[in-house]
């Protein structure tokens, strides 16, 4: 039975490689091969490549300083963070929210067997994530140090220890998430904020990494002795990779104890959490008078409600909500200096700094694209707008507006910040602000048009319309193209007109395109939506 359950779990994990959810059929062998190659290229080529560079920059220096264990400790910790945090939410979902939990629990299968099969998935996912860092670390170390058999064996055991730690952390964190989510209100907002915080920390560390590594290599011996004194466990952990069998023995013993503890925690709480996870905290209904709204406002609010109800939706189609105002503040703080430098660089093309500020804002506004998947997100509920007494054009306008009302005020704020710090004419400043509004309208309209033209209503997971459709890809890449086109043309020929005239032409052009897109939505788009 365990074998069958594990096989089922594996099929679920890799289902995307074998089954095309959009077309609701199995992929051809050629497609399967392409998907696997794509995965390998992404994981090994790009992610693995990044960690290979990191390993190369650390390995030789740390070993030369006599703290080779610090290399394994650091690479191991990076792998643990990557593996545990990369899989914590999928651990929570796969352990406690699995759709077949009820079915399996109703069958004559011991709960223990179900948990083990689920844990196998967690282990595998964690191992895959962490291997992106551990495998390059091992290969680099073995080649540079010219490792002997004992060090290779120690490295392999270190690899195993890392994967087990990742699993234990994932399970424990998944359990914490499950416990919290049973009581939490506004889950989607909190999840989004946590994810954004992680992204922020990730980028902060990423940009600081070069300096950190340089500092570490320069003072490796000093840091090594400090860590060894303050956190002996970390030292032992690093020693396992070097093939220190005393450290390996201690670590394996500690891990065995932790495994038993986590198993007891899981086996005691699994049934309760798995069977109560669907029941959200009860909200008491209190009757109150609702302010009546018009159909268009109701539809726009419905779209915004959809947007804010899903952390996936907000993270993938709304990061600009944080980045645009942040960029406005950054412009106020640092923009003046940067723009002065830009003006010096582009002396032959005056006001290039204004165009570059605009381009930055346009690129950030592309990160608000909630209109693009909104038609697809209607999914099986599409009968509601289709049967209500509103025209399809009104429904599509509401989708467009749901993006515009989010992005336009933020863009306005950031544009005013930009205009305030630029040393340019009043006309250019005003036109800059108007241009951001015209571009926000264009982006909202373009995304709605693409979403209407390329809808996908047959999804089973909302991630498919949010992340994986052609509409979203075109909205993103098309948006980027549209964002850089004005500055590109300005640098090539537009500067000859002067920034004010050039911007005025673009505003007129964008307004014209906006009107054409709106007309398309009202006519052809409405017909497509009605026929879905």
């Amino acid at each position, binding site marked *: 039975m365990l074998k069958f359950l594990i096989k089922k779990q594996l099929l679920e994990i890799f289902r995307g490689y074998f089954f095309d959810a959009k077309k609701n059929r199995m992929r051809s062998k050629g497609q399967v091969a392409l998907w696997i190659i794509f995965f390998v290229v992404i994981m090994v080529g790009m992610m693995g490549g990044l960690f290979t560079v990191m390993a190369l920059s650390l390995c030789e220096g740390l070993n030369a300083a006599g703290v080779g264990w610090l290399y394994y400790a650091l690479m191991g910790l990076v792998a643990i963070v990557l593996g545990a945090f990369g899989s914590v939410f999928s651990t929570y979902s796969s352990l406690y929210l699995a759709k077949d939990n009820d079915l399996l629990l109703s069958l004559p299968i011991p709960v223990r067997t179900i948990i083990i099969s689920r844990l196998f998935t967690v282990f595998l996912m964690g191992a895959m994530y962490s291997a992106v860092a551990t495998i390059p670390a091992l290969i680099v170390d073995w080649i540079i140090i010219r490792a002997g058999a004992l060090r290779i064996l120690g490295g392999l055991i270190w690899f195993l220890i890392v994967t087990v730690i990742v699993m234990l952390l994932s399970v424990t964190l998944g359990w914490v998430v499950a416990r919290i989510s049973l009581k939490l209100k506004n889950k989607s907002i909190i999840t989004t904020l946590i994810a954004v915080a992680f992204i922020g920390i990730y980028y902060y560390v990423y940009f600081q990494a070069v300096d950190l590594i340089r500092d570490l290599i320069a003072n490796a011996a000093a840091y090594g002795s400090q860590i060894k004194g303050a956190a002996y466990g970390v030292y032992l952990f690093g020693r396992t990779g070097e093939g220190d069998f005393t450290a390996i023995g201690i670590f394996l013993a500690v891990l065995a104890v932790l495994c038993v503890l986590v198993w007891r925690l899981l086996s005691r709480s699994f049934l309760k959490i798995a069977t109560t996870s669907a029941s959200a905290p009860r909200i*008491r*209904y209190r009757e109150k008078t*609702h302010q*009546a709204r*018009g159909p268009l406002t109701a539809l726009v609010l419905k779209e915004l*409600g959809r947007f804010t109800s899903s952390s996936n939706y907000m993270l993938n189609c709304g990061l600009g909500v944080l980045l645009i105002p942040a960029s406005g503040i950054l412009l106020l703080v640092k923009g003046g200096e940067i723009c002065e430098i830009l003006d010096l660089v582009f002396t032959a093309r005056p006001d290039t700094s204004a165009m570059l500020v605009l381009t930055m804002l346009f690129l950030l506004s592309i990160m608000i694209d909630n209109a693009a998947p909104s038609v697809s997100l209607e999914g099986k509920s599409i009968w509601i707008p289709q*049967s209500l007494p509103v*025209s399809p054009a009104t429904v599509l306008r509401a989708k467009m507006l749901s993006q515009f009302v989010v992005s336009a005020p933020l863009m306005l704020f950031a544009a005013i910040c930009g205009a305030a710090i630029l040393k340019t004419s009043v006309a250019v400043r005003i036109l800059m602000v108007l241009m951001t509004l015209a571009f926000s309208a264009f982006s909202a309209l373009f995304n709605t048009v693409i979403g209407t033209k390329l809808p996908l209503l047959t999804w089973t997971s909302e991630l498919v319309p949010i992340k994986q459709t052609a509409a979203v890809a075109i909205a993103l890449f098309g948006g980027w193209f549209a964002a850089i086109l004005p500055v590109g043309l300005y640098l090539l020929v537009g500067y000859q007109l002067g920034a004010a005239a050039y911007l005025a032409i673009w505003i007129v052009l964008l307004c014209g395109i906006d009107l054409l897109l709106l007309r398309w939505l009202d006519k052809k788009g409405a017909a497509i939506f009605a026929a879905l």
Partner: protein
Amino acid sequence: MLIIEHLTKRYGQKTAVDDLSLHIRPGEIYGFIGHNGAGKTTTLKSIVGILRFEEGRITIDGHSISEEPVVCKQMLAYIPDNPDLYDFMSGIKYLNFIADVFGIPADVRQERIRKYADLLELTNDLAQPISAYSHGMKQKLAVIAAWIHSPKLIVMDEPFVGLDPKASHLLKEMMREHCDAGGAIFFSTHVLEVAEKLCDKVAIIKQGRLIKAGTMEEVKGDDSLEEVFLELEAE
């Protein structure tokens, strides 16, 4: 109230509904029965403007669903066979959303929500997200949403599926009350006993074609509706 004239709907080569004509008058509960895939849902979806059709004409209170869809939809309510509602909303938000779209004043909607939610015992769950609703609760919410704007015509696809016996009984009473007040109801069902007891008129569809329609007495005579249905199906 509802006039269907020579309705024909095709999916590629397949004719789902073939030259179907029906007339549903105010005050009538009209049942629509047929085996799986006979064309019931296609007909209902065509009536409410979700599906476009190739031939024929559907009018509601004299307005064509093809030419004046918004006017027609303002007069009707639709409950599909599977109530896929907006899971991200709470029950009360969904009802207010529907009321907003239909332009129901705040005081009127509040009174109707109170009345029907109390009747169907859904009041305590109105603040819950729809994602936490059972199938039956979603069905009840869809019923309240249909009744909230007091439509002239209610079109329902298998409305009793998922409802508990008490809710089924209440829905039947609501249907009768609605028609006694001058409204009309056209609904599909597989539960022939319900159709026999509840409907003023009934239509039987087979392979997209209407094979019998009329008052309950005209259709079944002295036999049971089940016997007549099985007999017609066997022909």
